């Protein structure tokens, strides 16, 4: 019973009753040191105050092995919610075997799609994503049994119709009662030195000490008697489970996690139990996947990543993008409820940091670079409208292979005679279902984009827009601005190059006006938005339209051009009545 690996070395002395009041034994301290060393800021166990009704169970996912189409050394990543874990590298084979498992907490309204990505590894350069699959853990939960998913298709990241291999996974969701029982078993195993499945008084007192509970010896004796229901002088697993369950409700028995030392009792019994259940697994090596990653791309980096692990962890924090943290952009995928990393060329990141995050850079912009940006964008527009530019389309699709889904594009690649035609591609009817299409009181997202939403301008300034001159009046211009907008909500839809570049109407209503505001073509990348030196939204070229609605009053819709993509075209005109979800216009290459 219990865990072999959690046992003390055979040479270690066994504590006895005389030492019951002594400090927590060193083996626990050793566990703590080990875990703290391995854990970085982003590798904290994923605890927040989880309400009992939100807890759906603990899912155990084991990645068994795969069958690929060529030989390599492979690794697999499991991404779930805001966490990613990776296996070790396999041998050089086309049938890698990992047998690595990880437990994750399932929340009723939380993420439920687990993504497994398989990478071929490279000794020096970044590892390459070869295939992926997604598993709906809710489905597994509803089937209520251990599910060995063998031969799951691994899909090509650039085309979901191409299969690049298969993978075998075992997936099992423990229900909360089972978790509670297993927890008592595990707790008991920590101090059950003679492995008889029962705790003597000395083992029991050591357990209480390990929980960080500094109750007096007399109280421990009382607890022991209380636990020992049948009076046989030992506490078995069932008796301990009852004690943990009842006592923890009345008065916290467990003050600290015996593995990581974390203070417990902040929330409730269930959250403490979940913490320790996962922590025990990490401490005992039962969980053979390495954690601490936010995205599968991050988890798949090669040895260079490991060399600079700490520097990278620092730069991977979610938040405003300034300084070295501007080297990566993390976004939260609303569909899968997973963090994903946005691809930006390193050279572009460095140049953007140089220009937008320093006074010197912005001073240069003031002295003529604005005209340069405009000139570059106009030239780019001319090129993108030329027939020769069409040959760049396949390269573009390849460079964003897992982000441009050609299956949903209305026309095949051959249809597009210029790159700009491809850039403003239409989608097949139904490719973007409109939520609650019959209800005008529900607004929808206006673009395929990375969205930020704030209930007030103050919040937007606190959390995102750092340009010192930003204001609603500055954004809308005198022609459209009214006081009612000043205290209103602000929603920012940022389009990345790979996105579908048509924007749609978020609300139903009548278009009152269009106002062109000339300006610069700074980048709209977070690096610039998060810079205090740059005022993208109030200085860039933009078109402000006003939609008059019955449900939302007046809504200002501002289309803002950016470097290279500075051309804004509207498909509706003043006086038109538009329904939410209607195509409203598009951005294209040009000045």
């Amino acid at each position: 019973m219990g865990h072999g690996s959690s046992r003390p070395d055979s040479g270690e002395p066994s504590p006895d009753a005389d030492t019951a009041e002594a400090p927590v034994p060193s083996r626990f301290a050793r566990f703590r040191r080990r875990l703290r060393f391995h854990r970085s800021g982003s590798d904290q166990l994923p605890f927040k105050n989880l309400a009992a009704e939100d807890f759906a169970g603990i899912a155990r996912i084991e990645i068994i092995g795969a069958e690929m189409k060529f030989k390599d050394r492979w690794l697999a990543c499991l991404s779930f919610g805001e966490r990613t874990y990776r296996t070790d590298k396999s041998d050089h084979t086309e049938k890698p075997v990992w047998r690595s498992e990880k437990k994750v907490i399932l929340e009723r309204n939380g993420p439920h799609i687990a993504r497994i990505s398989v990478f071929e590894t490279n000794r020096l350069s970044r590892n390459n994503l070869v295939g992926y699959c997604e598993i709906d853990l809710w489905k597994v939960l509803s089937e209520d049994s251990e599910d060995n998913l063998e031969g799951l298709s691994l899909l090509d990241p650039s085309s979901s119709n191409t299969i690049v291999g298969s993978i075998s996974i075992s997936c099992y969701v423990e229900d909360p009662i089972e978790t509670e029982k297993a927890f008592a078993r595990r707790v008991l195993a920590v101090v059950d030195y003679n492995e008889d499945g029962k705790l003597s008084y000395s083992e029991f007192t050591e357990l209480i000490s390990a929980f960080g509970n500094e109750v007096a010896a007399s109280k421990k004796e009382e607890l022991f008697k209380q636990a020992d229901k049948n009076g046989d002088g030992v506490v078995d697993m069932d008796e301990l489970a009852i004690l943990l369950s009842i006592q923890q409700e009345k008065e916290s028995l467990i003050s600290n996690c015996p593995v990581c030392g974390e203070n417990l009792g902040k929330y409730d019994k269930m959250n403490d139990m979940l913490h320790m259940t996962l922590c025990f697994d990490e401490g005992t090596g039962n969980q053979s996947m390495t954690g601490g990653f936010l995205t599968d791309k991050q988890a798949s980096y090669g040895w260079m990543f490991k060399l600079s692990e700490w520097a990278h962890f620092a730069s991977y924090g979610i938040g405003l993008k300034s300084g070295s943290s501007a080297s990566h952009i993390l976004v939260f995928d609303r569909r899968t409820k997973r963090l994903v990393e946005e691809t930006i060329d390193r050279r572009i990141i460095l140049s953007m940091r140089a220009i937008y995050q320093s006074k010197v850079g912005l001073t240069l912009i003031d002295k003529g670079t604005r005209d340069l940006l405009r000139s570059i964008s106009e030239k780019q527009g001319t090129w993108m409208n030329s027939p020769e530019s069409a040959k760049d389309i396949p390269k573009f699709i390849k460079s964003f292979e897992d982000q441009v889904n050609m299956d949903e594009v209305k026309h095949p690649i051959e249809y597009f005679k210029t790159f700009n035609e491809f850039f403003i591609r239409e989608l097949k009817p139904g490719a973007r279902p409109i939520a609650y299409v019959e209800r005008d009181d529900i607004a929808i997202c206006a673009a395929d984009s990375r969205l930020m939403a704030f209930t007030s301008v103050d919040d937007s300034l606190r959390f995102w827009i750092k340009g010192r001159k930003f204001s609603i009046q500055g954004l809308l211009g005198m022609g459209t601005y009214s006081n009612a907008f000043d205290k209103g909500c602000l929603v920012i839809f940022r389009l990345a190059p790979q996105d579908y570049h048509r924007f749609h109407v978020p609300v139903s209503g009548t278009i009152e006006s269009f106002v062109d505001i000339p300006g610069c073509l700074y980048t709209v990348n977070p690096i610039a938005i998060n810079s205090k030196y740059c005022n993208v939204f109030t200085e860039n070229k933009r078109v402000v339209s006003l939609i008059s609605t019955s449900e939302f009053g007046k809504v200002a819709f501002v289309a803002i051009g950016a470097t290279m993509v500075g051309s804004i075209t509207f498909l509706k005109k003043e006086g038109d009545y538009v329904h939410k979800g209607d195509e409203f216009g598009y951005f294209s290459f040009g000045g």
Partner: protein
Amino acid sequence: STVICVFEKDAIQIDEDLLANSERSLETLVSVGMTLGVSRRKQATEEM
């Protein structure tokens, strides 16, 4: 390129998940047609 929508005061209740991510300075990847929020005017009328 970017689109910004500005709603009048008390006109919309933005979806909680979008606000929560934004308060962490974290952008949310969305698609055209996903819900953004509900009119507060209608809510207020119904409550009355």
